[in-house]
């Protein structure tokens, strides 16, 4: 192993070890009883040094980096997917197009692109529950959901979703009836999946915007069902 990788790892390991030993002084607590993504000061410096080097050699443009980050921090996220879902709920012809050719139907609303070049939308019904995972890495439909949350990229979700989907859903607070058919979609190719959740009952009077506000990221990954009142945040 080269020096660079070893040094980086040594530092990361040291700090992770401190956190594991209960010394949270060096860890970052997110206010919900555990810490993760424990970060030594080292990556900050190392990444900064690498960026400066790449900029100095003319290999990257700093404004380009900023624009990329801005796109995924502020413009592309689960609100996009929520609009797709709401449109499908109110417009049966759109829903048909969405299930038949997701790329084109999603593009109708102006979404598409990187890590969503090839999309398939799968519909949840009272009889069928779809959920999405990437066991091999962390593939996720960026144009409609943004970048994935930590749990989606984590070993527990990646390892267990395919062998114990019902147990995983239970941890998300979703107990599926025994007779429901569970379909797990493992993102092994460049095809990305979006779950079209069931429209909650009691929302017949709501317009498209109000419906979109009910749709959560987790429901579009297939680890939650939607309720008529918005409980979580999709962003």
């Amino acid at each position: 192993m080269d020096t660079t990788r070893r040094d980086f790892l040594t530092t990361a390991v040291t700090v992770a070890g401190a956190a594991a030993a209960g010394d949270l002084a060096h860890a970052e607590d997110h206010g919900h009883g555990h810490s993760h993504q424990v970060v030594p000061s080292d990556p900050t410096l190392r990444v900064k040094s690498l960026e400066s080097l790449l900029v100095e050699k003319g290999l990257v443009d700093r404004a380009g980096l900023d624009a990329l980050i801005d796109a995924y921090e502020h413009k592309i996220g689960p609100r996009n997917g929520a609009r797709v879902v709401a449109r499908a709920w109110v417009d049966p012809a759109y829903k048909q197009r969405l299930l038949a050719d997701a790329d084109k139907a999603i593009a109708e609303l102006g979404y598409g692109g990187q890590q969503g070049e090839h999309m398939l939308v799968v519909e949840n019904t009272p009889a069928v529950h779809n959920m999405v995972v990437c066991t091999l890495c962390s593939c996720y439909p960026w144009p409609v959901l943004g970048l994935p949350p930590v749990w989606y990229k984590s070993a527990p979700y990646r390892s267990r979703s395919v062998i114990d989907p019902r147990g995983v859903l239970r941890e998300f607070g979703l107990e599926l009836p025994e007779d429901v058919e569970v379909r797990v979609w493992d993102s092994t190719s460049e095809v990305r999946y979006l779950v079209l959740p069931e429209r909650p009952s009691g929302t017949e009077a709501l317009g498209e915007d109000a419906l979109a506000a009910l749709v959560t990221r987790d429901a579009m990954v297939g680890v939650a069902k939607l309720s008529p009142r918005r409980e979580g945040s999709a962003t």
Partner: protein
Amino acid sequence: MNGVHDMGGMHGMGAIQEEKNEPVFHHRWESRVFALRRATGAWGKWNIDTTRHEIELVPAADYLRLGYYERQFVAFIETLVKRGMLTRVEIDSGIPARGSPKAVPPLTPEKVAVLVSKGVPTSRDVPVSPRFQTGQRVRARNINPTGHTRLPRYARGKLGTIERDYGVFVFPDTNAHFLGENPHHVYAVRFSARELWGEQAKPQDSVYLALWENYLDPA
């Protein structure tokens, strides 16, 4: 490769930890790693399969210990060196080699919008006939390549059904190693949960994998 990244079906990874109102990035350096990988990728010196494989090559114990962006960072440095974009001396010192030319970055802010909204499609419009039809029974091959593959271990040797033809796509197993795009058909293959996991699984449940034709034999 039979790496720890191929974790479908493994036990012992613990409970799922949700974070309420999670930020897109937890630290600034994570966002910089994210952007640097994309921006240098615009040089076309590697492809998405190369970068995935480089992450798989992170030693197993480290892979599990490191966070997502930490893994990406260590793999990124390897890629930069292997593809000749930077030298180890430059990375360790932070200083460009003497006399190295100043390049013109390909990913400018204007081009970011195009990259983000158009992406980099890996489908190929080439006339390759499908070997399998919808509804056909297939068996995933029992292969154990030491290089990159997108056929997870848990599906190898298992019986499935072709549910859909996604079209023709670049083949990761060769593309990752610069051995050609070798495009061919990718299918949605349905494996019953019982076929994969035995009697413990519900009879009506299933797992759908998107598999290249080269991973499949007629059954």
